[in-house]
């Protein structure tokens, strides 16, 4: 009894098109509510920071106050002597020779190894019976530092006498970077930009800058490591990718991967900031050393040092265009500050480079993107991943070009917009819908908010709708409106030849007289709504109402990361794939049991709907309950998207991305130019989502991404001083938009199927983050006439003083 299958599905397996007619309630296309939604709103959701274990200890991390220094000595004796302290660990205490980890390069020390390379780098760990005891003991660790020269920008990183931050690089890019302080460099050469430039009637150049944005998730890094009797460890953790963590944790602990058992705990937001490890290894080390469960929770201050940030960037662009508005060529140079360790900088460089043209057709390009090693905080994944910085620059250029040509900025964009069949600068043909011009048309066609929208019926001003808001700084006098447009292109899923897959284990059985599907994946629900969608897919494919979502853990195969807009595509695809295999088994069983009673078992196309096996003409053949009996069908399968390939290191050519995602924004702002205050009153968005599996979640993703883009446009920046120290690690000093800063966000959704993707869906979570920022800045430029080449734009950039 019980069928079990494990294996790998062939890539590109043709999905059956069940969704066209499913009647099962709660299936795809419905806005079923998220199970975690109400709990989060009323404050009852259990986050990883709420974890508790009898007799547990609290871990604390001592961090470097210096951005670059040699550690000459560490004295832990006073900390160890403190009552309540169970362990103090430094680099010397690490159990194996494997003392570094990293997403792409293994270059990050678990604990500083003689040198610290950024402000806040972990140096030592303490476990104690109370968090405050651990904190105080850590303060008693005496570390002698000998400060070293600081590398803080391109000039200091590439100077002749620049300190080499990672002298013994053995990563796969080490051989072809022009300088050891360059993490990765990706040029793309296509056509002949110099030659094409001769055809240009106008040439426009610009230098742009993007500040360091933080993911600003609300749930700080936290988790609980519980030592097990077999010498292994159980780790309960908030992360984006359990198996990637596992791959990095196990070797440091000296344990085989099967002895490190990980379970996803409640995640309070991620946005890329949980792709890298934070306290995972630290908690495990302390638990193994003390034999007791160890919990670590960062406070907000520490959280700003506990995860990577969005790469700050400097971007230089040149575009040419003919009088009739066709772009002739593009040259650009994008310099990303990767900070002290590689994190996902190489992939960010790949994105910045390959998406640097934007969603436009430009045949002749000369592109260079690179990430630096510096002593600034490490930067890595954040929603939009390299495409955000580029989009701010190329969209600023589009407006500049249109202005120089005397053209409407939307028409100019539409004239150059890519569509299906277009060739990317990498040579890749865009082989699914790319409705760029249509998205621009949609946002332009939306009605504009009324002029003087702050006026109430009685003629008074609603100051909440004005710049300065409740501060009462204006009642409308001196307020200038501006409208700006932007559109962006984002890749979906892992690129550049990465073996990207997800795994789903689905069981179907009768429980309490009802067919019940259990879906088990390692997908991290970080708030994106993935568990809701997985259940919808199982209902649609298996025709059952009852779906149990098993907690995500490492007892099932990898789901890949909850990032790159990929989980609905990948884990959704894996669930669909496993359900299809289950369905085949059900029908096999059905034929065996009942095939002789009705010819349709052999001749018709059969579906599972409403707990029954039905024919494609809706004739019920059997109840699932009767077909299954006491059989448990249990299948675990890996599922892959079609393979991609690496970009050529010299020309940047290659089929690098599996899918593209497009969104466009129109921003309407009111600016108080006297006081430099901006009120974004509307940020309309149009996006092609392929297929909206859960329309409400789609809208939520678009709203969230739009607001995150607004934050980068007008307020969000981690301030890193020239000495490479972080200045504003708090939500009092690092500002994120509140609801009063959040505009109306009307959304238009297109559903143009991508035939390569499950249900034709398109990853959606990131694209709107891209275009939101340049649209807002374009609108402020329109209102003020200022060039505004750097984000975030603050009052002092508008007051002209």
């Amino acid at each position, binding site marked *: 009894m019980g069928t079990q299958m494990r294996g790998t599905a062939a890539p590109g397996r043709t999905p059956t098109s069940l969704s066209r007619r499913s009647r099962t309630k709660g299936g795809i296309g419905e806005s079923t509510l998220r199970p975690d939604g109400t709990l989060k709103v009323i404050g009852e959701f259990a986050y990883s920071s709420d974890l508790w274990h009898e007799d547990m200890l609290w871990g604390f991390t001592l961090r470097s*106050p210096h951005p670059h220094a040699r550690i000459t000595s560490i004295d832990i004796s006073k900390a160890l002597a403190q009552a309540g302290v169970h362990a103090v660990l430094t680099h010397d205490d690490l159990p194996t020779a494997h003392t570094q980890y990293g997403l792409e390069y293994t270059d990050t020390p678990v604990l500083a190894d003689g040198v610290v390379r950024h402000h806040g780098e972990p140096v030592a760990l303490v476990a104690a019976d109370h968090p*405050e005891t651990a*904190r105080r003991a850590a303060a008693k660790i005496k570390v002698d530092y000998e400060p070293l020269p600081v590398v803080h920008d391109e000039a200091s990183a590439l100077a002749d006498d620049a300190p080499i931050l990672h002298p013994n690089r053995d990563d796969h890019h080490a051989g072809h970077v022009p300088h050891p302080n360059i993490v990765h460099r990706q040029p793309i050469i296509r056509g002949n930009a110099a030659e094409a430039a001769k055809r240009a009637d106008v040439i426009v150049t610009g230098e742009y800058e993007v500040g360091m944005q933080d993911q600003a998730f609300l749930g700080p890094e936290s988790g609980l490591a519980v030592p097990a009797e077999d010498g292994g460890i159980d780790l309960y953790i908030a992360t984006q990718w359990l198996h990637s963590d596992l791959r990095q944790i196990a070797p440091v602990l000296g344990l085989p991967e099967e002895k490190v058992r990980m379970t996803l705990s409640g995640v309070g937001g991620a946005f890329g900031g949980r792709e890298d490890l934070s306290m995972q290894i630290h908690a495990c080390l302390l638990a193994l050393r003390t034999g007791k469960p160890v919990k670590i929770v960062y*406070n907000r*201050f520490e959280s700003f040092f506990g995860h990577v940030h969005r790469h700050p960037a400097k971007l230089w662009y040149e575009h040419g265009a003919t009088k009739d508005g066709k772009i002739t060529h593009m040259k650009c140079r994008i310099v990303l500050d990767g900070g002290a360790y590689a994190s996902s900088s190489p992939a960010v460089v790949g994105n910045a480079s390959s998406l640097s043209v934007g969603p436009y057709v430009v045949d002749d390009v000369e592109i260079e993107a690179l990430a630096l090693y510096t002593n600034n905080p490490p930067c890595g994944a954040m929603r939009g991943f390299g495409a955000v910085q580029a989009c701010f620059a190329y969209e600023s250029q589009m407006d500049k070009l249109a202005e120089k040509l005397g053209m409407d900025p939307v028409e100019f964009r539409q004239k150059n917009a890519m569509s299906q069949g277009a060739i990317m600068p990498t040579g890749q043909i865009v082989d699914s819908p790319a409705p760029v011009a249509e998205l621009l048309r949609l946002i332009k066609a939306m009605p504009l908010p009324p002029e003087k929208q702050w006026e109430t019926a009685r003629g008074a001003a609603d100051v*909440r709708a004005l710049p*300065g*808001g*409740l*501060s*009462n*700084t*204006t009642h409308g006098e001196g307020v200038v409106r501006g409208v700006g447009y932007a559109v962006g292109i984002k890749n979906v899923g892992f690129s550049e030849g990465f073996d990207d897959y997800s795994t789903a284990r689905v069981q179907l059985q009768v429980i309490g007289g009802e067919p019940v599907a259990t879906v088990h994946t390692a997908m991290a629900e970080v708030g994106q709504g993935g568990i809701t969608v997985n259940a919808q897919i199982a209902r649609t494919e298996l025709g059952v109402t009852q779906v149990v979502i098993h907690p995500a853990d490492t007892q099932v195969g990898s789901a890949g990361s909850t990032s790159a807009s990929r989980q609905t595509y990948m884990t959704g695809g894996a669930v669909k794939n496993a359900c299809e295999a289950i369905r085949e088994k059900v029908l096999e069983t059905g034929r065996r049991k009942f095939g002789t009673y009705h010819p349709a078992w052999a001749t018709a196309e059969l579906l599972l709907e409403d707990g029954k096996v039905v024919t494609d003409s809706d004739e019920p053949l059997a109840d699932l309950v009767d077909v299954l009996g006491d059989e448990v069908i249990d299948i675990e399968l890996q599922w892959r998207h079609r393979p991609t390939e690496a970009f050529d290191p010299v020309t940047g050519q290659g089929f690098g991305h599996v899918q593209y995602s497009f969104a466009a924004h129109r921003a309407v702002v009111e600016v108080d130019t*006297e*006081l*430099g*205050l901006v*009120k974004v009153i509307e940020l309309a968005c149009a996006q092609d989502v392929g297929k909206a599996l859960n329309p409400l979640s789609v809208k939520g993703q678009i709203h969230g991404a739009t607001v995150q883009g607004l934050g980068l446009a*007008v*307020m969000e920046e981690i*301030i890193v*001083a*020239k*000495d490479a*120290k972080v*200045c*504003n*690690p*708090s939500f*009092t*000093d690092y*500002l994120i*938009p*509140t609801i*009063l*800063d959040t505009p109306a966000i009307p959304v238009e959704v297109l559903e143009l199927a991508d035939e390569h993707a499950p249900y034709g869906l398109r990853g959606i979570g990131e694209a709107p983050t891209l275009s939101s920022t340049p649209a807002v800045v374009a609108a402020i430029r329109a209102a003020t006439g200022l060039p505004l080449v750097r984000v975030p734009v*603050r*009052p*002092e950039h508008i*007051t*002209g*003083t």
Partner: protein
Amino acid sequence: MKTFRYERPADPAAAVTLVAGTPGARYLAGGTNLVDLMKLGVETPELLVDVSRLPFGEVEETDTGGLRIGAAVRGSRLAAHLLVRERYPALSQALLSGASAQLRNAATIGGNLLQRTRCLYFQDVSKPCNKRRPGSGCPAREGAHRDLAVLGASEHCIATNTSDLAVALAALDATVHLTGPAGVRSLPLTDLYRLPGDEPERDTVLRHGELITSVELPPPPHSARSRAPLMVYRKVRDRASYAFALVSVAAVLDVRDAAVHEVRLAFGGLAARPWRAREAEQALQGRPATEEAFVEAVRTELSACRPLRENGYKLALAERLAVAVLADLAGQG
């Protein structure tokens, strides 16, 4: 957080005795600022003396028609108080723009006045700061200082006072009543705060053990014609809510026969104390209430500004904000 003792004495005299007799003792009221700073290690008191339940919780009209506000009154209560909203609306505006509802519910008036600066370097114990650790240096001068002082700063410190309430009270000619080991005394609110000079660690002139018991306001100024209190508090900040002032202005203006009969003007966000613009007030007294006069007067006041690399924009911002506020008030009168 460092270990501390906690006491909740039954009467003010006992509280004063406790704090005065213990070096490193601090009064605790709402705790919204002090406790945060203790968590960060910025404040490390030996003893906390809780004064939040002492009998300073009343808002009363004075015999002269002014208002006495107990130091333990919560911000939310004062902001919503009928007398305040009718007679001193600028005070209500300042409180409402100062913090979230949760903070206003906890924070007291006395505590609000004694909140410490939000200089990024003061908050971070891993960095030098003359206010936190005298003599350690002031990295803000060379570092991140776009929100710091342009008036009255010293080479040792460029921190600003971040209380919105204090700016409004400064413009309203508030008096602060104190009790202490040497008895009671009263000070104009503007004299409570000090400029950093070479002792930036001292924010106020309070002596150890002195406790704010109440704040007293003179009767509100009234326009001869409308009897409406002509006053306003306005704040420019980086986002719509929950952010400190880049610049703020509190102003009282009474215009009679098109001339300035009475004016009081105070700036926030520019200095280590709420900056009462006495030069501007003097320049305007009796002058025609015109925009030109306002501009000229405010410029006179701000001519003392000594901006640094990143905070020079505050001058224009302060001028424009003050002139707009005065012009609005003049127009209403």
